[in-house]
């Protein structure tokens, strides 16, 4: 899924003039990851089984066209030192629908409010176990219930789980700056924002595959990048 960042960024502390920039690119997978498996427990559950006609699948490795790798968090890792940013006002949504989290991977900025919703007609609990931020565990008993949460510190891959339906897993990455995106099912990503021209380090983080980086240069508000995450055989 392609997550686009809107220009909601405050001016950096340096006072330099920022330009609307667009970073595009693709994340690919090198090697052959294990194929996705059907999660049989979903249909076996009396409540969850009624919500789905298709099989719920594992999403550890989502590989699309031309080896494009989905669910990869892409972000500016270096080049913005000393600058501070205001968290976007947009509230990303983590939904629980058909006894699965949607999306599987979410990226937010530290201090940015995000929402967790239960779209199912029965109860889920949301058990967040980040390693750096403060965790929480609360119930969402009713369909449509929405809770808002904030993580204050940067952290990659904070785990969310529903223990009522223990196959339900999701990951939230918390970024230092607002220049990030999550690659779509074909591995494509777009980062938009007031990023000044200059040299940066772009990082791509996959929950299983780890992190790879690439030096990029933004010129005239444009840059492209291609990163490959390797599956160790």
């Amino acid at each position, binding site marked *: 899924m392609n997550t686009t960042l809107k220009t909601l960024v405050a001016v950096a502390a340096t006072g330099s003039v920022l330009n609307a920039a667009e970073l595009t690119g693709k994340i690919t997978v090198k090697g052959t990851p*294990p194929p996705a498996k059907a999660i049989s427990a979903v249909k076996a559950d009396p409540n969850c089984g009624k919500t789905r006609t298709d099989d719920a699948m594992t999403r550890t490795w989502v590989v699309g066209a031309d080896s494009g790798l989905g669910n990869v968090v892409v972000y500016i890792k270096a080049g913005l030192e000393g600058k501070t940013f205001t968290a976007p006002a947009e509230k990303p949504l983590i939904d629980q629908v058909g006894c699965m989290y949607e999306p599987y991977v979410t990226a937010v900025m530290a201090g940015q409010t995000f929402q967790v919703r239960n779209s199912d007609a029965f109860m889920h609990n949301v058990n967040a*176990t980040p*390693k750096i931020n403060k*965790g929480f*565990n609360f119930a969402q008993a009713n369909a449509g219930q929405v809770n808002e949460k904030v993580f204050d510190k940067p952290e990659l891959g904070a785990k969310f789980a529903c223990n*009522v339906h*223990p196959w339900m897993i999701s990951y939230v990455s918390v970024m230092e700056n607002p220049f990030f995106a999550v690659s779509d099912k074909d591995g494509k990503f777009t980062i938009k924002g007031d990023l000044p021209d200059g040299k940066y380090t772009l990082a791509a983080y996959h929950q299983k595959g780890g992190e790879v980086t690439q030096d990029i240069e933004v010129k005239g508000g444009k840059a492209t990048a291609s990163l490959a995450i390797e599956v160790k055989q």
Partner: protein
Amino acid sequence: MFRFSAFTAACTLVLVCIGGLVTSKGVGMSVPDWPTSYGYNMFALPLSTWLTGGVFDEHTHRLVATIVGTLVVAQTRWLGGAASRRPLGIIGVSELLCGLLLLKLGPDWKGAGHFLSGIGGLVLLASLVPVKNSPASAGIPSLVWAAFVLVQFQGLLGGLRVVLDKVVVSDTTLGTVLGLIHGCLGQAFFVLLCFIALRLSPVWQRASVPVQGGLRFLLPLATFAVCAQLLLGASMRHQHAGLAIHDFPTAYGKVWPATDSAALERYNHARTDEVEVTAFQIQLQMFHRIGAVIAVSLVAACALASRASSTDPVVGRGVVIWTCLLGVQFALGAATIWTAKAADVATAHVAVGALSLATGVLVTLLSRRQSTVPIRDASHVSPKTAIWPGSVPS
């Protein structure tokens, strides 16, 4: 008394099984609060919520734990005899008052306050029940009081495992640590209740002489091996590292798997689940496998030694049962891996593990007992109540 104690031990085995199921399914945190359940008094949780997914396992575990707690309090009152009234009354009032005091301290103490006042009320109620019998024979009241303390501590641990789940100490959540202690202590508690039942049984009351020779030392050694296995297994389960190695009898296709960083990366990339295994978890499972071979070998050696000598027939039968249990346990361990840790198989592995430990401890204690004069009650017990045939003196 024997039947009641045996019933209490049986209920505890059921509780251990449900607790094992909760861990096997990973649903321990499906009820985020304690001692309330989703804000409800635990006995008033709506049926629709109770029957939802993992809530059923976790909430049932809490309810059965309450039943076991009540049975242990009743056992304390009964086996402690008329003399147990005063200490139970004092403990009950103290716990009730402490609980009410904690409730006044603020919302952070609410869970512990409800738990203490609830259990204090139950203990106080037990002290008010008229019991006229004298305490059970020597040694048993001490065991019963130990169970009384342990059941409350175990209940508190189970609750704190939920409440403190988010507290991190040295990269590990307190929930994981307390869950591990809760799991191990549950097994020890079960063994204690089995021992109380054995002490009251006709088997214990018959005349016997201590076992001599190699078996005398092999029995505690094998029991220690089974106990160590249970600790290793519990460590694996509570780290959810039971499938750190997914093949058996090989380990990642080898006799001993590589655990360098490149190998770990390879293993983890090949997994479709969310678990990231570590070198420690792989080594833990390897030690559990080696421990299984040692435990089975030692118990088999006990069986051979028992056949070779003129062992007390009760001890002999106990060793045979123990050997069978270890065989089943070994097969269940393998099946746990082959079925990708299917919850029912993994739970059966926990249950048979608890039975194996209890059998080992009981047989060891029976083998060291010396009694020349049958206790008077034994002659009044019908053969139907004997736990092993032929154990009642004629």
